[in-house]
Each structure stands twice: as C-alpha cells, then as structure tokens.
C-alpha cells in the first residue's frame, strides 16, 4: 500500500547540473517522511524517479509509463508540461509544476489539472520590477535588458514585461540566448556592453546561467544590476566566479535554511541512514532547499486530500482537490519544520498558483542571502492576462473542458 | 629465360586454404602452393579463379573486404603468418602490389614512392638511392614526379604502384596483374625488371597474371587456378608445352596462333580433368 507520486527527474543531459540538487532535495524529503512518519497520513509515498534528461520526448514516455498508477505528474520542464497538459484533462491526473510551466495555469477554471504552485513566472517578473522600482523610485526612462533562453521557458515573462514596459515607461531589450550558445554568450554580452542597460534581468537555465555570470564578470558589468529568476540562482553557478559575483541577485520563493527543523530530520533519517545522494555543500544550497519545499507542497496537498476524503490512499482526482486547498500559513510552515524556507500561501479552485511571493536573494561572494523582506507580486497587473491567455489556449484546443464550478476569487 | 628455380627451398607455403567472403561465398576451395626462395612463381587462371583472393589471403588484406580464411595454413619461412597485421608481414619482407593500382591519389608520385619505404630503417641516403633506381626503371615517373597520382594515366599509376613496392626492399613481392593496362613495350619492360630484381637482388615473386604468355616466359614455376582450385602445376617450361595450356591460355592451337577475327565462329571448349 503506497501512494505513487513519480517524479520525471533529470539527472542527466545538458541540464543535469541544475536538476541533481533539486531532485535530491525532493527525494530526501519524502525519504524523511517515510522514515519518520511512515509517509503521509500513515501511508508511504513512493516518489520514484523516471529519468527524462530534460528531453520532452523521454518525458512524455515517462508520463505514459507512470500514468496508470500515479496520483500526480511532476513534469519538470516547460516542454514536457506543455506536452502533457492536454493529456491530463483526459487522464485526470494533476500536474504539479512548482515555479515553472505555463503562467496562465494559474487559472484553475481552465487548467483544472495543472498547478504551478506557489509562484509563476509572471509573479517573478512582477516582483523583480517592484524591487527595481523600490530601488529607483521609478523606472521611467531606464533600460532593462532581458537576457533569456531562446525557448518557451525563456519567453514566458515577455507578455507581462512588455505590458509593464509600456506602463512604467522603461525600455525593454530582449536578448535571446540559443540553446547551443549557452556556453558561448560573448555576442549577447557585447550587445549588453553596447546598449549599456541599467539592469539585466535573466531567465536562464542550465549551463546558460554559469555562462552568463562568467561573461558578466568578464565584461565588468556591475553585478548588483544583474537579477535572475529563481532558476538562475544556483549556488554552483556562482561559485565559478566566487567573490567576483558578489551583488548578483535572484528572486526566489524558497530559501535554504540549514537551521530549519526539517533539515535536521533529513540529516537524521536520511543522510545518516545513508539514503541520500546529496552532500553537505549541496544541501546548504538554494536548489536543494527548493527541492525539499516542492516535496513539502506535494505532501501538503496529499494531507489536505486525506483529511477531506477521510481515506489514506487517495486517488488522482482527490489529490487535485488537495492541491486546490493547500493552506500554508506561517503556523503550518513552522509545524512542518520549514522555518524560513517558503513564504506562506494558499491555493483555491480558481487559483492554482497561490502567488506566494518570495524574497530577493543576493550572492555575497560565498552564498545567497536574503536582501529583502517577503515580497508579494502585484497580481492585479496580470489577472486579465491570465484569463485571456487561458481562454485563448482553451479555444485553440477546443473542445476543452472547463470547471465552471470554480468561482474566480473564491 | 630460366627454366628452373634457383633453389628448392620453400619460402612461402600455402596449404589447403579456404576463403569465404561475407560468411557465405566460398571462393577458395583448398588452394595449396609453394613459392621457392629466389624463384618467380606464376599464378594463372581465368577471371574469378581466385588469384587475387589467394594473394590477399597471404598478405592478410582480406579482412577489410569481409573475407576470411576458414581453413588451411599459410607459412612464411616456416612460420604461420595468418592473422598477422599486414604491416607486420611487410616488416618480414613480404609486400603486395595490388590489382587495380591503388595509388594514393592525393599524394604526388614521388610521395607515393616514398611511402613504400615506410618500414625501412636504413636511412635517408639508401632510400634516395632506391628512388633513383626506380626512376631509372620508369623514366616516365620521373617526369611526373610532382603530379598528384590521382591525375596520372592508368599506366603511370601501375608503374607507380610497382615502384612503390620496390622501394620497400622486399624479400618477396606478391604482384597482382602487373601487366594490366600497360603498353606492350612496357609489359615486356616490367617483366625484365622483375627478372632483374629477381636475379640481381634475389627477390622472390609470386605473380598473378592473365598474360600467360609473358608470365610463363619469365616464371620458373606456375600454378593454374580454376574456380578456387589448383588444377595444374609444374615448371613453367612444362606448362608452356602442355597442350591444354597452349590452347586456353596461350591461344595457340596446332596451327599456331589464331586471329581474333577468326575465333568468332569457333569456341574453345574447356576440358580440364581435375
């Protein structure tokens, strides 16, 4: 008897460097729960990994292979998410894509089965702009370069950024980085040097981040004006430049807290038992911590469903209800031992993201530290955008079932 | 013209060799032959008899054509040489001139000749001297020494291939159809060179030839191969006198040579008693 919650992991391929700490964090959290509490609600969670190598094709294969028994699918790449999104409607399995995937997934009425809890890319963009606004008073007349992977993921925040550029009157300069040029970004940085933007905002992934950061150091771009999304905030990428990278920032909805009780439990039940693939240095990093948080969110969804339906062995659609009714209050976070690792948030039928907000982190030369209080995105900016894009998607994929029972705002 | 081998000492022995191409095509069905030290041995036979295959079996060049020796043994100076790297065989003094020239197309004629000396360790001067020797044998090559071999004529390439073999100072040369595509004068000349090298330097030859006439004039012993089997062997003089050989290989009947125009209405019928 177990809950089958497979993870479409990628510990291989060109993005493995970033995948490994995340997957380790995820795996270790469930291993800890299984060892400490006998799982969730008394039932073990089988968090088996299916390796995708970040390839969409393999991901879909994993999905097909696991969907028979699984209560959730964690596709772990925007490409795979897009691919399985329509299938989950038919198969009725919730997608959990924390902090990635398609931003309009926030609209639970249309995307009944998809969750990008606790924050989506438009949240990230909104917070970054807010931070810059706070720093400068106004962005009027500023120039912001948007360095991004030339890939659906990299282009996600563009609609919002373009909209805001008009509203706040700053100049937006999108600079794409090809998948094959990730390690060789001198052209992009030459462009940055020529254009002299006030800020560089980065939507990078995998080897692109390290490439961009080294290139920024080389061209002497002021690091404090360089801000990345949460996937561009990996300790290992910054360690390559070390102190030269000091000042680099990354917005994040998670934070590693080695002092948090949950970390002690992981140490005790998993690491000391020899069940972890991780190492202390990695465990202190942002990505490992984020992996832990992601699993914790999933466990919360499971627990919520178990409470509601009064069964331990919930099924996929019950989990969907659970994921729609997560309520991560400060108290609950303390209770779970995740102190300081994730901001509070709540999901609902209509709101599949939760818009938790996050913190601005800064590399101090050795590690990431929080340099802001808990920030919240201005969701009103893009509520309409979410609704429009979701409707557009549903139309293009007609007939697309929607959940009319949801009350927006409810 | 010699009538007997210089010595009776067997240098190269091929015993009952069977070769299969591509796992299914049986080409040599048990070929045995001996090359005597210091002798010129001719291997005769029609198209597809298996001459080339025999030579390649000896020099271990079958491998890359997906052929393999499945039976029998090949001994050089009493040692088994099967399965040796072709290069190792060259070091032991056996070199092959392949059918169809096989020059290095992008190398100049001179560079082609120099690669022949690849395994030699006796210094630049000796190699230079041999180069001159080859040029003496083939003055046409000297004229074209700077041309890329790929752009020389068929005959020039043949000369180049033979010259290249000579450059390695071998003990034994396996010559596959040296006369093919050469002007008659040159055929004669090449065999004279073979003879000179054989007599002067004691190099032994195993030569596969279609031009039976010339081959038997210069060889000491001969083997006749038909569809993968040796059907006749003997001294060159004997073979020359054999009526069957005369008929089929020398194109002579009792009345002497027949005109190619007359053979139209007349076909020879094979009648080997093997």
């Amino acid at each position, binding site marked *: 008897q177990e809950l089958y919650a497979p993870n479409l992991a990628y*510990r291989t*391929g*060109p993005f*493995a*460097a970033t*995948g*490994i700490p995340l997957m380790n964090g995820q795996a270790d959290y469930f291993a800890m729960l299984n060892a400490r509490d006998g799982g969730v609600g008394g039932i073990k969670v089988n968090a088996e990994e299916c390796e995708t190598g970040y390839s969409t094709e393999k991901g879909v294969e994993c999905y097909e292979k696991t969907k028979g028994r699984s209560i959730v699918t964690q596709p772990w790449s925007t490409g795979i998410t897009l691919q399985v999104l329509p299938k989950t409607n038919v198969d009725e399995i919730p997608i959990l894509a924390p902090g990635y995937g398609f931003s309009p997934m926030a609209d639970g009425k249309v995307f009944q089965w998809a969750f990008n809890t606790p924050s989506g890319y438009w949240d990230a963009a909104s917070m970054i702009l807010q931070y810059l606004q706070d720093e400068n008073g106004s962005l009027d007349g500023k120039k912001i370069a948007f360095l991004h992977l030339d890939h659906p993921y990299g282009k996600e925040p563009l609609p919002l950024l373009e909209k805001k550029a008009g509203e706040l009157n700053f100049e937006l300069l999108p*600079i*794409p*980085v*090809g*998948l*094959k*040029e990730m*390690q*060789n970004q*001198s*052209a992009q940085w*030459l*462009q940055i*040097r*020529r254009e002299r933007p006030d800020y560089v905002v980065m939507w990078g992934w*995998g*080897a692109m981040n*390290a*490439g961009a950061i*080294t290139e920024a150091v*080389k*061209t*002497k771009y002021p690091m404090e004006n360089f801000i990345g999304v949460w996937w561009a905030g990996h300790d*290992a*990428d910054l360690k*390559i430049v070390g102190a030269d990278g000091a000042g680099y920032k990354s917005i994040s909805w998670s934070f590693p807290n080695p002092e948090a009780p949950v970390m002690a439990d992981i140490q005790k039940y998993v690491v000391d038992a020899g069940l972890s693939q991780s190492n202390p240095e990695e465990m202190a990093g942002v990505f490992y911590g984020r992996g832990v948080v992601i699993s914790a969110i999933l466990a919360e969804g499971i627990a919520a469903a178990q409470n509601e339906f009064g069964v331990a062995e919930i099924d996929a659609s019950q989990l969907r209800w659970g994921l729609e009714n997560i309520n991560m209050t400060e108290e609950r976070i303390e209770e779970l031992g995740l102190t300081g690792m994730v901001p509070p948030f709540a999901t609902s039928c209509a709101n599949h993201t939760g818009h938790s907000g996050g913190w601005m982190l800064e590399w101090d030369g050795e590690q990431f530290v929080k340099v802001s209080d808990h920030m919240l995105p201005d969701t009103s900016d893009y509520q309409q955008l979410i609704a429009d894009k979701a409707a557009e998607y549903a139309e293009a994929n007609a007939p697309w079932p929607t959940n009319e029972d949801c009350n927006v705002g409810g | 013209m010699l009538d007997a081998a210089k010595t009776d000492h067997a240098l190269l022995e091929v015993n009952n060799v069977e070769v299969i191409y591509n796992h299914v095509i049986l080409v040599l069905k048990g070929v045995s032959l001996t090359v005597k030290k210091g002798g010129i041995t001719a291997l005769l036979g029609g198209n597809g008899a298996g001459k080339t295959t025999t030579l390649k079996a000896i*020099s271990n*060049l079958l491998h*890359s054509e997906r052929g393999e020796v499945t039976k029998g043994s090949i001994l050089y100076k009493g040692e088994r040489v099967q399965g040796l*790297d072709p*290069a*190792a*065989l*060259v*070091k032991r003094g056996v*070199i*092959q001139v*392949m059918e169809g020239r*096989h*020059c*290095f197309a*992008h190398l100049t004629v001179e*560079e*082609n000749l120099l*690669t*022949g000396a*690849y*395994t030699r360790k006796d210094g630049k001067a000796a190699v230079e001297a041999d180069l001159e020797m080859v040029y003496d044998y083939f003055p046409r090559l000297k004229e074209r020494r700077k041309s*890329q071999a*790929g*752009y020389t004529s068929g005959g020039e390439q043949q000369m180049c291939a033979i010259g*290249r073999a000579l450059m*390695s100072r071998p003990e034994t040369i396996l010559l596959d159809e040296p006369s093919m595509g050469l002007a008659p004068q040159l055929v004669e000349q090449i065999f004279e060179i073979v003879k000179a090298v054989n007599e002067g330097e004691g190099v032994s030859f195993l030569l596969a030839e279609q031009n039976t006439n010339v081959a038997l004039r210069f060889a000491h012993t001969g083997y006749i191969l038909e569809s993968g089997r040796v059907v006749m062997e003997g001294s060159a003089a004997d073979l020359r006198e054999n009526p069957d050989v005369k008929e089929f290989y020398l194109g002579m009947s009792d009345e002497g040579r027949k005109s190619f125009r007359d053979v139209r209405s007349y076909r020879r019928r094979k009648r080997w008693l093997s």
Partner: protein
Amino acid sequence: MLYDYFIAPFVDMFAAPDFLMQVLWEGLVSGILYALIALGFVLIFRSSRIFNFAQGIMVVFAALTLVGLHALGVPAWISVGLTLVVMFGLAVTIERVVLRPLVGQPDIILFMATIGITLFLIGAGETIFGGENKVMITEELGIPTGDYVLEPFGGLLILQHLDITVVIVATLLVLALLAFLNYTQMGRAIRALGDDHQAALSVGISLQTIWVLVWFIAGIIALVTGIAWGARAGVSFALEVIAYKALPVLMLGGLESITGAIVGGLMIGMLEKLFEIYWGQPFLGGNTETWFAFVLALIVLLFRPQGLFGERIIERV
C-alpha cells in the same frame, strides 16, 4: 531601409572603434576555440576518412577527468599527466574495439560509429563524474586569470589573460601539428592512409599504430580545448554542443587541412560575431550564431566544393 541594412552597421562600426575591436577580439578567441575542436577532427579525418563526431564529447571527457582527478586530491599537473594517460587508453580502446573491426567500411558507417562512441562516452562520463557543473582548475594549473584593460580611441577594450593564453597555446599547437604532418615520415603515412587504406596496409603502414597515435593526439587537443572552454564557462556536458560549431569550420577550411581549420575557425568566429552584433541583433531577432556559420560555409562551398584549403576532389574516369 537599404541604408539601415547596408550602410548603418558600418557607420556604427566606425563610430565606436573600440567596441569593434572588442567584437573582433571576442570573435578571434571563439574562433580559435572552434578551430581547436576542428583540429582534432582534421587529424582523424586525414588519417582515416572518419568524420569523428566524438571530438566534442572527448573535450568534455578530458576536462572532466582532469577536474575529477584533481578533486580526488591529485596535484594539478600530475592530474594533467594522468588525464593524458586516460586519453591514451581511450585511443587504444577505440582503435581496438571500434575502428579495427570496421576497417574499410563506408565513411558513413564510421561516422555513425563515432556517434555510438559519443553516446557511450556521455553515459560513461555521467556515471563516473555526475552531471554537475564543475569548476575548471584554472588557477591551480597556473593559467593567468586577470585582464588587461586598454583604452584605444578613448574607448574600452578588455583582454582576458586567459584568452591571450589560449591564443598563444593554440598557435603553438597548430605549428607543431603542421610540422608533424608535412615534414615527417609519419605525417606522410597519415595522409596516405586517408587516401587508400588498403594500399597503405599493403606497403606496411600499420593502421593500428597510426590510428592510436592520431586519436591520442586528438585526445591531447581535446584536453587543451577542454581546459580553455572549461575555464570560460565551467565544465559540464552542455559543452558537448559546441562540437557542432566545429563542423562548419571544418567544411569551410577543408576537411583535410590544418591551415583550413585555423583560417576557417577565425573567419567564422569573427564574421559570426560581427554579423550577430551589427545585423543579427538589430534586424533578425538575434541568435543568428546558431546558423550563420553553416550558411557561410555553405556559400563558400558553392564556390569551392572542397573548402578553402581542402584537397581537390579528384574526379576521373
């Protein structure tokens, strides 16, 4: 309109000569790095007509071995030595297991086999070293890491010490290879082998020795390349994709030519950078570097089907 496309970019260039110089310098450095990978290809192609797709992964493999050994506590330069031993072992294995049984097969089959090698090395490398991004041991190897900041025309030009070192090392490597191929017996044998391996065998050139040698040299080049690239962007499997960049370089320069690899590398490195900065980014949405090199090579090939320095394709009947 026309002015925008054909005149304005040049005006830009002259308006900021320091920037132009920086662009050219960056192009030069990446060109040299492409050329380094291409060199490994050329050597192997010359000696066996094998289009060695595995050169890219060999770069990663060499760099990972070096970093991995150092992480085990082996001193930097001894790690270099040991890595060379590993590369030699790799060359011997590849010759034994893959090349020898495939002697004489059509080019495309051998090409496929090298893709097989690539896959194998990716799998093996990830199993042994893990997929994490690693930091190249630049300082431990004594490679300078600072930069010179020059101010030509009152502008700014940043030259990394690292890049300068790469340029110098690559130049030396190329000169050594050129001398080796053109002035040694072995060099001639390598060229002969590429033309007709049967004939080469028949004159006593040992395929095995030469192939091991050539793959080993390619391994050395891979290590140098790996150090150079690794120092710039860290060592990870993502490096493998830069191998694609070597392909147009090769084609442009000519598959058999060392000189071609260098000239091709520099041409592509600089032109693609110029094109991207002055045309690609302003007019085409950027990221033209993914295809520019290929299209350039294609155009050159239309005029010289064997590349700029390749051997003339002999067509006779």
